[in-house]
């Protein structure tokens, strides 16, 4: 290994160690991260298991995942990592472009190793006969990911629009919000808890209503957590150059889409009836969407003075939902749980005869 790479390797090791020391001081964050990771692994395994059960080629899914991971991890010239190396004190180590590409490729391969091993494990357990194809797919995914990361962007950004040059800059307000520590614990618990609780309820009860109810309530709570339009952020965005549609996208629609994506994922992982689950999501999505638009257009619109009566109606709608919807949902859940417990007790005491 060239001596420059050893220094870069040590630099990355020091970065990791430093992050680990920081995390060690915050065990709650570490627990949430581990819980999120295990939830993700569980979901992925469920998905692969279902696909293997239907005789679908799961090695192709592995190759696609490896491609996506490599595409995201290989540092583009604009990435923070590449920028810190190109502008920072270690520039002379990678000033040669060939050396730089080789180092980036080695680093990406090393970072993708845990994912590769996990996918290999899934393949070995679920469909060992396709291991050769899996290896081919993984290598092709790795190569294609690096090649596409090296390709120049299709559309050159305008030189003046600096923000547009940063990948996913439009989602920056969403990332800022998700980084907020108060959201980590409840958000992480909900993301793991919704599919798990739905799956357990469905597997222990022949009628799907309890599972679907848990899914609906969990999705509603996740919406409460993710979707409110942030007053401060909207006020700030009003002073930034951009249209009202852009402000709405960044402050409201992006969190809404994230919520919808997470709920759909939960639905798929939990194995709940798709049609009923989608109906619940449609109803919830319509309600949440209307509330978001209502809040945005009334309280944070670009018109300078909002009439008092508009704010009053807004408050009344929110209060009505809070007063009626949540207790009703809790009552419904309590009734379902009582019924479920009674059924379990009855069947245990008087098991049905064949």
């Amino acid at each position, binding site marked *: 290994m060239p001596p420059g790479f050893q220094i870069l390797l040590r*630099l990355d090791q*020091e*970065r990791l160690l430093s*992050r680990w020391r920081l995390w060690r001081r915050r065990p709650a964050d570490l627990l949430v991260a581990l819980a999120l990771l295990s939830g993700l692994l569980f979901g992925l395994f469920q998905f692969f298991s279902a696909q293997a059960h239907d005789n679908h080629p799961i090695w192709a899914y592995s190759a696609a995942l490896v491609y996506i991971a490599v595409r995201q991890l290989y540092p583009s010239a604009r990435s923070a990592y590449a920028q*810190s190396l190109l*502008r*920072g*004190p*270690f520039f002379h180590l990678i000033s040669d472009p060939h050396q730089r590409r080789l180092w980036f490729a080695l680093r990406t391969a090393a970072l993708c190793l845990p994912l590769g091993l996990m996918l290999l494990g899934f393949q070995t357990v679920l469909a060992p006969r396709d291991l050769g194809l899996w290896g081919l797919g993984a290598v092709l995914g790795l190569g294609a990911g690096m090649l596409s990361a090296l390709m120049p962007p299709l559309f050159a950004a305008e030189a003046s629009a600096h923000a547009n040059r940063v990948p996913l800059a439009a989602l920056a307000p969403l990332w800022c919000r998700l980084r907020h520590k108060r959201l980590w614990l409840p958000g992480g618990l909900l993301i793991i808890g919704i599919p798990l609780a739905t799956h357990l309820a469905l597997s222990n009860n022949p009628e799907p209503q309890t599972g679907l109810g848990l899914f609906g309530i969990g999705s509603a709570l996740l919406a409460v957590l993710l979707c409110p339009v942030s007053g401060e952020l909207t006020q700030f965005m009003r002073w930034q150059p951009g249209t009202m549609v852009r402000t709405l996208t960044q402050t409201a629609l992006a969190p809404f889409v994230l919520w919808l994506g997470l709920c759909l994922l939960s639905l798929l992982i939990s194995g709940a009836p798709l049609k009923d689950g989608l109906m619940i999501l449609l109803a919830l999505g319509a309600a949440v969407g209307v509330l978001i638009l209502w809040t945005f257009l009334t309280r944070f619109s670009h018109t300078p003075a909002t009439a008092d009566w508009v704010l009053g109606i807004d408050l009344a709608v929110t209060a009505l939902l809070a007063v009626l919807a949540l207790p009703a949902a809790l009552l419904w859940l309590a009734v379902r749980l009582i019924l479920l417990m009674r059924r379990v007790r009855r069947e245990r005491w008087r098991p049905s005869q064949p």
Partner: protein
Amino acid sequence: MAAQPALRCEDLCVDIAGKRIVKSVSLSLAPGQWYGILGVNGSGKTTLLNSLCGRLPVAQGRIWLGDEEVTATPQRRAALWGYAPPPDSLPPALTPQVLLALVAESRQSQVPDDPALLEALDYHALRHKMIGTLSAGQKQKIALMCAFVGEPRRIILDEPFNWLDPLAIYALKNCLTQRAREGALILTALHDVSSFMTRCDAGVLLADGEIKRGFSSDDLSEGRKDIAAFEHMLYASLRPA
């Protein structure tokens, strides 16, 4: 026989995104001096310095460091200069001590141990803190420390006094003067006219990527006799025509 220039460039042009930023700059700088580059924002100071130390490719012209032509070898240019990187490019998750040890290792040298420099840049107080938690001025001090790793004979500093407190500025000026007296070439881009007038041994005024006016050590010595008139002349020269 005159000393060999520590840096020589002829007809140097640098482009960024297809636009010519530095236009036909020629310099011949002897070792043992503090050379200042003065100019308004967008005049091409940083681009010129970045191309000299290998961070940007040369579009046209030639560069020599000592008797070695380094126009086509940016990695060699980068290795031969002590360079203070932009403070925001420092890895936030490391401590200054770890960072400087790695920089020293990459340059196969030692972390600077000059007590005056360490005191000027407050190194002992900062070395165990995370870079990400430091203020802008403290990060600037650590970035400046990087330039002195390995006792380089050529040092490039881009606006080194930004964000520093008055005590650090004064101590750093003394350190730079001392290094120049010991034979190093200190090349700095400056916005601070008073430092240019009172501390630099020579310099140029850059406007729109071109050298608008050069100042020899005699010019600067002459100017220091009537500081007010010299300052007035410099500000008048800085204004666009």
